[in-house]
């Protein structure tokens, strides 16, 4: 078990480094002259040279890479060209928003998808099952941003129950929560479509296995068999899928923040693109990619922990 842990962790760290290398390469090898971008076309050659020296742009690529990594590990991501503040400050400001959106979105997704999936499996072949199948098939094809627009159309424009976007700040908790309802629902519904299907097929697979028959033969109620025997076993392959969903969650959060004008990291990325603020974009892309890799790693570990059959082999 210890050896397995070591190997996986080593792989994880390696992947992180590889990801950072790719991000650094794309963002520093290809583009033009950052000094020019910062100072503008009118800058004198001297000013440009001085800035390049200051930013360390004359150093070899590898040195710059390690400088960046070293700084990143200490929480220093450089300074934003457009906002003129340390990138880490910008991130710290906006992280809570993104985290709360992602966390509540994931939670809602799990609740909706698991109940629909298990429910469909329990009613296999009947109306409920077909309904869920159909809904999830369509749900997969619906873009998150379009669903958001439709929700806004219904709840904000027509019914005027909820705000169409923006975030009023945390000082008024009720208003703050109200502005987060539609974004969370939009994020969760789209993700639920995929997860519900996977839950359903996983549950159906499990229901075909012998131990379910044994449980029934022991006189246990249908409900007990479903929730105490089928679900825990069905969750194992689902956990893997949920792990893969984190990439979609990251994408979805970025998109949703932009649809609803929420002041989170997703909005920040796009503002930075518009401003050609490379250090910020670089830091944020690295951050998001790191989140995806880390969650995949954690899910891998979780998988081994919850299945007693794998613990022996590990």
């Amino acid at each position, binding site marked *: 078990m210890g050896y397995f842990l070591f190997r996986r962790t080593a792989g994880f760290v390696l992947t992180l480094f590889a*990801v950072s290398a790719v991000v650094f390469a794309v963002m520093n090898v290809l*583009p033009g002259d950052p000094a020019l971008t910062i100072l503008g076309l009118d800058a004198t050659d001297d000013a440009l040279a001085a800035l390049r020296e200051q930013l360390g742009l004359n150093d070899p690529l590898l040195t710059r890479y390690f400088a960046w990594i070293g700084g990143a590990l200490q929480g220093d991501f450089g300074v934003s060209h457009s906002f003129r503040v340390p990138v880490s400050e910008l991130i710290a400001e906006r992280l809570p928003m993104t985290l709360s959106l992602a966390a509540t979105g994931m939670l809602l997704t799990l609740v909706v998808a698991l109940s629909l999936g298990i429910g469909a499996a329990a009613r296999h072949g009947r109306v409920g099952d077909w309904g869920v199948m159909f809904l999830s*098939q369509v749900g997969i094809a619906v873009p998150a941003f379009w669903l958001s627009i*439709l929700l806004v159309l219904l709840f904000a424009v027509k019914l005027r129950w909820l705000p169409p976007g923006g975030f009023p700040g945390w000082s008024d908790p009720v208003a703050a929560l109200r502005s987060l309802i539609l974004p969370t629902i939009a994020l969760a519904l789209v993700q639920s479509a995929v997860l519900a299907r996977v839950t359903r097929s996983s549950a159906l697979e499990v229901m075909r296995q012998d131990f379910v028959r044994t449980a029934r033969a022991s006189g246990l109620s249908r409900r007990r068999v479903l929730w105490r025997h089928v679900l825990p076993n069905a969750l194992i392959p689902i956990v893997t899928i949920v792990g893969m969903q984190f990439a979609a969650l990251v994408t979805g959060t970025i998109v949703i923040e932009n*649809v609803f004008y929420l002041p989170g990291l997703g909005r920040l990325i796009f503002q930075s*693109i518009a401003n050609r603020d490379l250090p910020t974009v670089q830091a944020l*892309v690295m951050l998001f990619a790191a989140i995806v890799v880390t969650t995949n790693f954690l899910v891998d570990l979780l998988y081994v922990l919850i299945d007693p059959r794998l613990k022996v082999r590990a």
Partner: protein
Amino acid sequence: MTRLPANLLIGAVLVSLVVGAAGLSLIWTPHDPTLMNIRDKFAAPSELHWLGTDQLGRDVVSQLMAGARNSMAVALIAVLLGGSIGVALGLLASAIGGWVEDGVMRLADLGFAFPALLFAIMLAAVFGPSLSNAVLAIAFINIPIFARVARASANQVSTLDYVSAARAAGMSRFAISRDHILPNIAAAVIVQATIEFAVAILAEAALSYLGLGAQPPAASWGRMLAEAQTLLYLAPQLAIYPGLCIVAAVLGFGLLGDGLRDVSDPRLARAR
């Protein structure tokens, strides 16, 4: 006469509609999709403009058709590009095996760490947003997907008897890959390609919506939705049509892919 699965049929119908509209738009659209006519903005559906006009007086139907053409082109290029590279890598990994295979698969895992959006963001930040960047980003994330599928299928196929026979007869690994393995993994690859087509359409729409894809005045369903979002109080219908097109296209290719999978390998058909 074997009954074709419902998803295959429905998918085929939807796909033909979308591809048909896209193809038709190459030679004819009811109006020029970029032609502005401010006086006629927000027109209601009529014989002249079947779905009305948008905020700049442009014909909606023509834009939708041009958008279809755009989506199909992006998806085709991205999937073809990413798919060919991916399949080649996968075949390479399977044919050579050993540490080459491990290395390729590790690279593939790396690719999975980058959602298309992140890659597109990087490209956009560096080069500025453009449609070709979007295509590159989508192509890039297809590489590991096809590499995996190709390698897994190739591994399966290479255990078949006649492949072993070809190997014993001294055929070069390259020739074996090309002549024996490739045709046999074609089914799996085509199924995956159809599904990735659906994913690519969705990705292009999202990127264009965010401004990282098709730049105005180029027609794109995503871009149309972005513009419509600012006009929800004035013309809500403008937000509906492009979305429906996206759903139809993505659903169509998705169902088609599922149907093809069910038909080509019934053993893999999931529990229904």
